[in-house]
């Protein structure tokens, strides 16, 4: 696959995921308004920008691009095809600006982790600052086979990425950062070695080739490699002052701060069974349009006449509807055939999964205690540190869908914890209220009886009406 990035034309419509509530509270423009590329549509903590110029039509329900999600609300913009930018500020001098000003800029540009996590970058950096920054690691490992969006960007925009890294250093008030790049990306390594020499940045940016073995590109694994110590479970990197930023994120930071551009486009690797390429896409482009525009003849070929597409790499990705749209965290889209997965066989306790697990977990045990779910055991087996990387599933001779199961159990455990927390909270509040009322001489018992009878009355009168 070549590493050139093609620029995609604006699609006829873009659809931007937005939460109903977020839209109601922070919506900035009315339906029917003409918006320019980069116009702010929804403010607040998670800003949404128009990604092409056109008319803001309405909100629609469309298949979501998130894992296992129900259809979600999207703002639709009918493009006028001109793709015209909002006027942007010029002559910005970031080097004299304070860290807060730069962080605000990053937040208002809507920048999130572009490696797939989509966590707001400004929040991440601000947390690290609160806990005293220690390390900045730039993640250019991109270890999932077949995903090349970052690699292509490193080719096309090495200078900008370095500028972005310098900005991040300035924000974190650090002297040095580590630039980790996958070993197999020879030409990217070469380009960065040259550029760092040319710009005399070797004191600030330390290049580190990292084995491109999956899952070395995941945040926690990479921290282990770069700092030599594994993060304790339940501790976020930012809490230890460690920030890991993806190269694409740094590029977006560069664009936001030097060019005053909101995050409206990203590079996506698009695969069909026959070929693949890297495209700079407008966020919100439906996957179907992307395939039709780029592989017009193949989209209708029998092998891919499908309504499904995989988002993300082959190992951590998931399958979504082809009508779902590119989001900020979409790194790769892959047309797949509609195949029925082979049925899972019983676990034969071969132990292959435990040998390969990068977190040294025991997937066969986790599997055993996931159905029916055994909360105590799963916590003891550290289910929460499972990266859902899918390696165990790949080697399992019984084709047990381990990763999905672990992901579901993780969600359930989280919900249980929330429920318990709520139970404690409610009990505490009820108790506090009882004590207070008793002190003031009212009895909760009589109060409640009064309330109850009132409720019953109102209910029965409602029935009669």
């Amino acid at each position, binding site marked *: 696959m070549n590493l050139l990035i093609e620029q995609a034309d604006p699609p006829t419509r873009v659809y931007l995921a937005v939460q109903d509530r977020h839209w109601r509270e922070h919506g900035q423009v009315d339906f029917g308004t003409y918006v320019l590329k980069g116009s702010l549509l929804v403010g607040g903590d998670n800003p949404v920008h128009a990604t092409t110029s056109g008319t803001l039509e309405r909100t629609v329900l469309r298949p979501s691009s998130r894992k296992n999600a129900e259809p979600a609300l999207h703002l639709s913009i009918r493009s006028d095809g001109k793709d015209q930018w909002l006027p942007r500020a010029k002559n910005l001098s970031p080097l004299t600006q304070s860290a807060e000003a730069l962080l605000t800029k990053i937040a208002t540009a809507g920048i999130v982790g572009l490696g797939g996590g989509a966590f707001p970058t400004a929040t991440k950096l601000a947390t690290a600052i609160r806990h005293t920054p220690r390390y900045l690691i730039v993640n250019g490992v991109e270890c999932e086979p077949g995903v090349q969006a970052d690699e292509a960007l490193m080719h096309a925009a090495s200078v900008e990425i370095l500028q972005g890294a310098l900005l991040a250093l300035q924000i974190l008030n650090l002297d040095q950062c580590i630039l980790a790049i996958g070993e197999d990306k020879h030409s990217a390594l070469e380009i960065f070695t040259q550029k760092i020499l040319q710009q005399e940045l070797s004191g600030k940016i330390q290049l580190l080739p990292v084995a491109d073995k999956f899952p070395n590109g995941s945040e926690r694994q990479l921290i282990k490699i770069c700092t030599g110590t594994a993060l304790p479970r339940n501790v976020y990197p930012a809490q230890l002052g460690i920030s890991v930023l993806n190269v694409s994120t740094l590029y977006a930071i560069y664009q936001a701060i030097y060019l005053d551009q909101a995050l409206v486009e990203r590079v996506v690797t698009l695969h069909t069974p026959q070929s693949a390429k890297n495209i700079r896409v407008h966020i919100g482009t439906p996957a179907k349009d992307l395939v039709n525009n780029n592989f017009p003849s193949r989209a209708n070929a029998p092998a891919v006449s499908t309504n499904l597409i995989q988002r993300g790499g082959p190992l951590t990705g998931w399958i979504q509807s082809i009508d779902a749209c590119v989001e900020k965290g979409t790194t790769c889209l892959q047309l797949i055939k509609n195949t029925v997965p082979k049925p899972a066989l019983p676990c034969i306790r071969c132990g292959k999964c435990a040998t390969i697990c990068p977190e040294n977990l025991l997937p066969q045990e986790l599997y055993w205690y996931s159905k*029916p*779910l*055994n*909360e105590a055991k799963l916590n003891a087996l550290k289910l929460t540190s499972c990266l859902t990387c899918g390696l165990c599933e790949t080697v399992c001779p019984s084709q047990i869908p381990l990763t999905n199961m672990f992901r579901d159990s993780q969600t*359930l455990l989280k*919900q*249980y914890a*929330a*429920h*318990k927390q*709520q*139970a404690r*909270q*409610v*009990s505490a*509040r*009820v108790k*506090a*209220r009882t004590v207070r009322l008793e002190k003031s001489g009212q009895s*909760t*018992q009589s*109060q*409640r*009886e009064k*309330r*109850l009878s*009132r*409720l019953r*009355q*109102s*209910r029965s009168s409602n029935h009669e009406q």
Partner: protein
Amino acid sequence: MIYKLLSAIGVLGTIALFTGALLGWLNKRYKKQDKALVDVIEELLPLTQCAQCGYPGCRPYAQSIAEGGAINKCPPGGEDTIARLANLLGREPSTLDENFGQHSPIHLAVIDERSCIGCTLCIQVCPVDAIVGAQRFMHTVLEDHCTGCELCLEPCPVDCISLINTDIQRVYLPA
């Protein structure tokens, strides 16, 4: 002779004391930390505190179940909760006793703040102190604490409290 007798008593007594102390410490150290049944039951209830079950709150209802009372009185919990309780206690699941009310999905109370006259009546009835406000000032519901028990709807003289559907899904611990 008497000396031997005394020394034997002394030695055995020391051993007895020592073993006793050790056992006592072990008992304390490795005490079985089972939660009380009533706590486990309470966690399975919806914790709405709506009092429809005829008890003044979820905890007293849990108490009554722990003492052998019926398990089909909680309308917000519905059949799900009954099934879980039955599973936990090894009883036969029964259908919801509709005398106590009908099962409905979980709601959240919202106050239309423009119409609120600040009479504080709603504050007085909220079982979880989820409403904040003061006399003649606007009142509002703390979303994170409201259990959707509906108790605040009726006392409001200007009918400015309504229930909205939430996407909150109550999760129950595996029994």
